[in-house]
């Protein structure tokens, strides 16, 4: 529950990395929550996109990387298109994903072997390929 803040933590390496990968300035976020409000998938997220940004900024690295929020993001860009501060939130979500996927220990989020029978035959290629791109390192 508690966060101990220091200037190193506020300018934490993790947030810097997310900013670098996403090309976005997390300090520009004024926490209006528009992204969460319009997100078609936020109903299933453990924390909203605006909270994911907040957690990242405050250096709550393991906590934010442990939630399903950015794995559930479908990059539909609704948040990006309506952000009053012009932050491309989808890029921030993707950056969080990248941080996990680029770590040495693989944390692949789909296992082909676990698909139900007949699934592979039905699902269109684009869904697979995008899925692999988003979920595999």
């Amino acid at each position, binding site marked *: 529950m508690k966060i101990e803040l220091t200037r190193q933590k506020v300018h934490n390496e993790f947030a810097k990395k997310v900013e*670098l*990968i*996403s*090309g976005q300035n997390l300090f520009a976020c004024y926490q209006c929550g528009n992204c969460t409000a319009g997100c*078609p*998938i936020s*109903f*299933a997220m453990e924390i909203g996109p605006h909270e994911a940004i907040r957690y990242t900024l405050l250096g709550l690295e393991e906590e934010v990387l442990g939630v*399903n929020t950015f*794995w*559930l993001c*479908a*990059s*539909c*860009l*609704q948040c*990006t*298109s309506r952000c009053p501060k012009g932050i*491309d939130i*989808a*890029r921030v*979500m*993707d*950056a969080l994903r*990248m941080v996990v996927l680029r770590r040495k220990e693989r944390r692949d*989020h*789909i296992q082909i072997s676990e698909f139900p029978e007949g699934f592979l035959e*039905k*699902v*269109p*290629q*684009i*869904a*697979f*390929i*995008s*899925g692999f*791109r*988003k*979920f595999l390192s």
Partner: protein
Amino acid sequence: MDYLYFPGCTLYTKAKNFDQTARNCSLLLGFELKELPNWTCCGATFPLATDNLMALLPPARILASAREQGTVLTTLCAVCFNVIKRTNRLFQEDGEKRDKINNFIEKNYQGDLRVVHYLEILKQEVGFPQLKERVKRPLTGLRAAPYYGCMLLRPFEEMEFDDKERPTIFEGFLEALGAKVVEFPYKIECCGSFQSVGSPDVATECAYKILGSAMKNGAEVVVSTCPMCTFNIDHKQSDIKQKYLDFKTIPVLYFTQLLGIAMGLDHRTLGFEQNFVDPLPLLKGKGLV
């Protein structure tokens, strides 16, 4: 006029009906889709990580090779359209990345290709009034809900496709075919996209909301521009039924399938057997087949 055409993986296999109907209709409308030789997959996602240049190589190759053949490239699949158009834009605006990628793929593409969607050809080149005149079998009385999804519209500044909150191109198309357009708020909300692979339940929920909204507003059929959306809102109806017992199914068609009907093509050439919810009873009921 002929158009360089990039089908993409899905249209080559699991959405062949989409591809075939589009080609057939083109011929009836006086233009041909000339398939790009030796095309590869576009990558299926535009990389959002700014440092991920590798993911831009496939669409860059497609663009470079298309530029050797002509000046306009068209696609049907909304995802491919998004990836290729955004990559093209990046080539126009970011000289540094352009040079890097060119260096890598050993081409010298400058971003001077026009990437258009099939619907744009219908609107801008054929013209909806002209399309209306050529319709052989108007879809009179068919209440069709146009589902845009995300990829055609967003990001708005890059896609420059239509208004991001209230697009109208699809409506214009359906009206030209004689259908009754059903306005529904979820037409621009996401279908769950690739989450049908990652988190199928989430995608099911998204699809349920979209279809529910369309039906509540009186739709008899939902029309889509994208094979991924189509899969999510058509094939996932079996999952929806399992979760929501009172859910009634609704046919989902590619816009080219509907175009095919209106242009008078034989319904057996429209690939309805690949649709999960059979549209034939509806179409027969309306006297359209």
